[in-house]
């Protein structure tokens, strides 16, 4: 049956592009609600990956033979597609990394080593993933700088009035996420960037949870750095992107040494290649980069506005449904959210809920979601998290809600 959702998308047809969804888990049809951890891959991405190895595989940039040419062209084509996807000014500002974590580590290490000084401050938010906390703590320790934290309110929104007090002349970097992986909060990037600009601080945005849901225009946001991962946007695992403004990237020292990142090497010394290659030491993940282009095409074809409309409908329906259940408490009620629904159930450990849900074919995430300081803020050990992608349906939410009710009933004695 061809039915269009309110968003105008034909979800049944979209689901056909995702072979993994058509399976049973523990004897029940799979309901995959762990999309914030990684979402599934459309057939075209899987095929592009295989096809690269079947027909085009060669190392890039150095070879002069035909396969090397084809491989290089496909690799660089993705860089251009990424540039367009986030509206960067030029393709050279797009650096391929292993993931969001490595992108942030690259900036903390390279930018931090060059520009941070004793007594400087780095401002992060209370809802950061460990990967946007620890790299800053590491460089801060090395440089005798200090990491400060923008507080949040109990809904999970950053308290902007407090940010004004925290951003001072000492602040050199403001690093926070575009959307929170634990709470779903969409942060007011432009407002915080404007505050950072007043004191001349640089801004890094962790966009891992944003790029598959929200329009991202790095020039409009005026971010100095924007980090994200391919695998959270229907692309392959092990591939991340770092956007950085040319003027900054050019002033930063290389992150790692190796092939590709050099201009000339003698035993007396080395001169470095231009951006982006200066930051891409060694053979990159060529096949995944090539296949990632197909994930971008997939999102572009559907349209971010329609994807967001569908996901918002799922989020709002799921939130309403689970709030009807006795003992369920939604954690994270920000004004604007991506499709992440974190909750706890009174008297039942999230681990038990996750295991029961899995037995019923429903994949959710449980735990602290690599945001322990945030869990401390809410005085909880962890939550159950359901997160939705474009291929999820209202029917699946009904299955999920029923599974949750059944699970809770097992604990009523």
């Amino acid at each position, binding site marked *: 049956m061809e039915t269009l959702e309110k968003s105008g998308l034909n979800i049944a047809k979209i689901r056909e592009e995702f072979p993994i969804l058509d399976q049973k888990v*523990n*004897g029940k049809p799979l309901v995959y609600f762990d999309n914030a951890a990684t979402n599934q891959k459309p057939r075209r991405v899987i095929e592009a990956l295989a096809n690269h190895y079947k027909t085009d595989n060669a190392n890039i940039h150095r070879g002069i033979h035909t396969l090397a040419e084809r491989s290089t062209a496909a690799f660089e084509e993705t860089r251009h597609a990424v540039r367009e996807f986030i509206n960067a000014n030029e393709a050279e500002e797009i650096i391929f990394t292993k993931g969001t974590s490595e992108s942030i580590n690259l900036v903390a290490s390279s930018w931090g080593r060059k520009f941070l000084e004793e007594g400087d401050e780095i401002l992060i938010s209370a809802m950061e993933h460990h990967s946007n906390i620890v790299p800053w703590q590491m460089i801060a320790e090395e440089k005798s700088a200090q990491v400060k934290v923008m507080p949040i309110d109990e809904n999970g929104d950053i308290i902007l009035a407090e940010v004004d007090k925290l951003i001072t002349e000492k602040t050199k970097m403001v690093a926070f996420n575009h959307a929170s992986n634990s709470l779903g909060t969409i942060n007011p990037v432009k407002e915080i960037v404007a505050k950072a600009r007043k004191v001349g601080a640089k801004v890094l945005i962790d966009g891992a949870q944003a790029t598959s849901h929200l329009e991202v225009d790095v020039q409009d946001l005026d971010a100095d750095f924007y980090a994200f991962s391919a695998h959270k946007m229907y692309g392959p695992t092990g591939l991340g992107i770092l956007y950085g403004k040319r003027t900054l990237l050019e002033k930063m020292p290389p992150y790692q040494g190796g092939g590709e990142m050099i201009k000339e090497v003698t035993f007396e010394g080395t001169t470095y290649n231009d951006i982006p290659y200066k930051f891409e030491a060694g053979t990159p993940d060529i096949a995944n980069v090539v296949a990632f282009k197909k994930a971008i095409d997939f999102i572009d074809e559907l349209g971010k506005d329609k994807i967001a409309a569908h996901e918002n409908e799922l989020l709002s329906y799921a939130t309403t449904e689970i709030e009807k259940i006795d003992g369920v408490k939604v954690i994270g009620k920000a004004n604007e959210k991506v499709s992440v629904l974190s909750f706890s159930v009174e008297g*039942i*450990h*999230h*681990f*038990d809920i996750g*295991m*029961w849900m*899995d*037995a*019923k074919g429903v994949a959710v995430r*449980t*735990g602290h979601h690599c945001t322990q300081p945030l869990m401390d803020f809410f005085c909880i050990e*962890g939550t159950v998290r359901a997160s939705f992608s474009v291929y999820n349906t209202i029917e699946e939410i009904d299955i999920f809600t029923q599974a949750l009710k059944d699970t809770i009933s*097992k*604990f009523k004695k």
Partner: protein
Amino acid sequence: MSNIQEIQDEIIEEFSMLDGDMEMTIGYIMELGDQLPEMDEVLKTEENIVKGCQSKVWLNAELKEDKIVFEADSNTAITKGLVSMLVRVLSSQTPQEIVDADLYFIDKIGLNRFIGTQRSNGLGAMMKQMKIYGLAFSTKTNV
């Protein structure tokens, strides 16, 4: 008192009735948790915590008449059930028997998936801790 092998075989027999159905299996594991003798609250110390990623397990060991008596608990119902099985198999056995024990029942009843780093419930760590107690007490009893 049955020996370690006999108890393991009993457990395997019980689980064979569940036909590998995951919901029934989890339900049964939780029932076993309910049967675990209550652990004295004073034993739930920081020192007795066996750290897992998502759930907490407390384990206490005492030597009584040359046998190790384990007491344990967990803050999650399913882990408590798993803990209960380990206590049932290894408690009131001699230190040497515990050291030598081949815990084949876990594999046989398909509980491997509950132990890996993936499930992170501290059960693997608990098994290791029980063996360490076995080793520690066996050196004591041999002296």
